[in-house]
């Protein structure tokens, strides 16, 4: 270590360090990637089953240029171009699970909610990601009585947040005392998701009967011109 090292030696040291580090990271990435993807898929599936009570199978539905088709869309979660169709064991549609996001009190709130088209109600809601204040804003996913608002919530004419205990209509949501901003944010996100998706959802069940075995999602054949 004593004395001046030559430039070549310095460059060599850093090159070797960078190469070794890169190789190691590629290895770790390759090993952990399938596990991480499986975790994410399992978390999504759990969330879909959670917000659509009675669901036993799900299919992704993607929006391209205003039309819906079965198949998964962009892998990028920010794209919000994919929703999930849930069916119960008899093959009846239990609803659509719609991921949507919007600004909360601290940062973006990402959530997924279940919408039952025939009944016209939201049937469940789960927060996927939020940085809301621990102890106050995080009640949007920890407070059972707030979550109960979303078990049969009418979407017409629009969902309205009201002060805690003031809920009288099926389209109203009781806000959490002390976390009004977070509660209103959740309602606003669901309204935003509804505005985008509800007009696109078809009536009835045009998706065909549920396949016997869950088929692998077909790759999109070609981009819509």
């Amino acid at each position: 270590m004593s004395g001046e090292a030559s430039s070549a030696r310095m460059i060599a040291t850093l090159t070797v360090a960078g190469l070794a580090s890169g190789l190691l990271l590629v290895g770790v990435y390759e090993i952990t990637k399938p596990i991480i993807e499986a975790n994410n898929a399992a978390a999504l599936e759990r969330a879909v089953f959670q917000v659509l009570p009675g669901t036993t199978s799900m299919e992704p539905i993607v929006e391209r240029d205003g039309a819906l088709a079965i198949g998964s869309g962009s892998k990028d979660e920010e794209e919000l171009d994919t929703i999930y169709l849930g069916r119960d064991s008899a093959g009846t549609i239990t609803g659509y699970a719609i991921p949507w996001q919007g600004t909360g009190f601290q940062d973006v709130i990402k959530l997924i909610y279940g919408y039952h088209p025939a009944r016209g109600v939201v049937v469940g809601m789960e927060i996927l990601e939020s940085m809301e204040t621990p102890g106050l804003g995080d009640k949007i996913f920890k407070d059972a009585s707030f979550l109960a608002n979303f078990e049969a919530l009418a979407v017409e004419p629009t969902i309205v947040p009201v002060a805690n205990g003031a809920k009288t209509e099926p389209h109203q949501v009781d806000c959490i005392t002390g976390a009004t901003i977070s509660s209103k944010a959740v309602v606003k996100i669901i309204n935003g998701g509804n505005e985008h998706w509800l007009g696109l959802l078809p009536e009835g069940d045009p998706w065909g009967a549920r396949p016997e075995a869950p088929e692998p999602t077909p790759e999109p054949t070609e981009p819509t011109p």
Partner: protein
Amino acid sequence: MSDLNSSARAYTEFAKGIWKENPVFVQVLGMCPMLAVTNTAINAVAMGAATLFVLVGSSFLVSLLRNYIPKQVRISTYIVIIATFVTVIDYVLKAAAPEVHRDLGAFIALIVVNCLILGRQEAFASRNTVKMAVADALGMSAGFAFALLCLGGVREILGSGSLFGISLFGPNFEPWVVMILPPGGFIMLGLILFFFSWLEQRARDRRARAALEGGA
């Protein structure tokens, strides 16, 4: 140096990190994760474990390679080594414990800039044998984890009325929400630093008095 001596010294290097040179209470290093992730005890433990992995791995490697790294590029080499370990633990946590990873969020990646880690490489691992470097790293991370746990435990008990997620006081407890918010972290850290300095001061006074009485 005989084996016995070397083991005794390794033990000393290990033990100093826990109390006498505790990275948080004495050196006041690593304040960012200390304040940011200690709103629950479990987060504190996970952060402590991640830091332990990175610090022990980096110290081992830096000490092993200390004679091959030209001193002009040593800091950059240390950073590459540290960043590699941090990225490894980041992926591993994401795969093995996604919930923990979600709670700790960006603070796992920010272990790279924890001064505790680079500090130990520069001050210790680059000048000592592998055995001593690992002993020192183990001691420092244990001390860091101990400090995180002190703060995380107290904040979770007061702020959520639970410890490791187990409710302690029943439903009638009104949690001090401020304790799990950032100001609670600062307040509690101040109190804990005060408490440990007071203990240290008291021990020093007692030693001084004993020396005085012994001399008289």
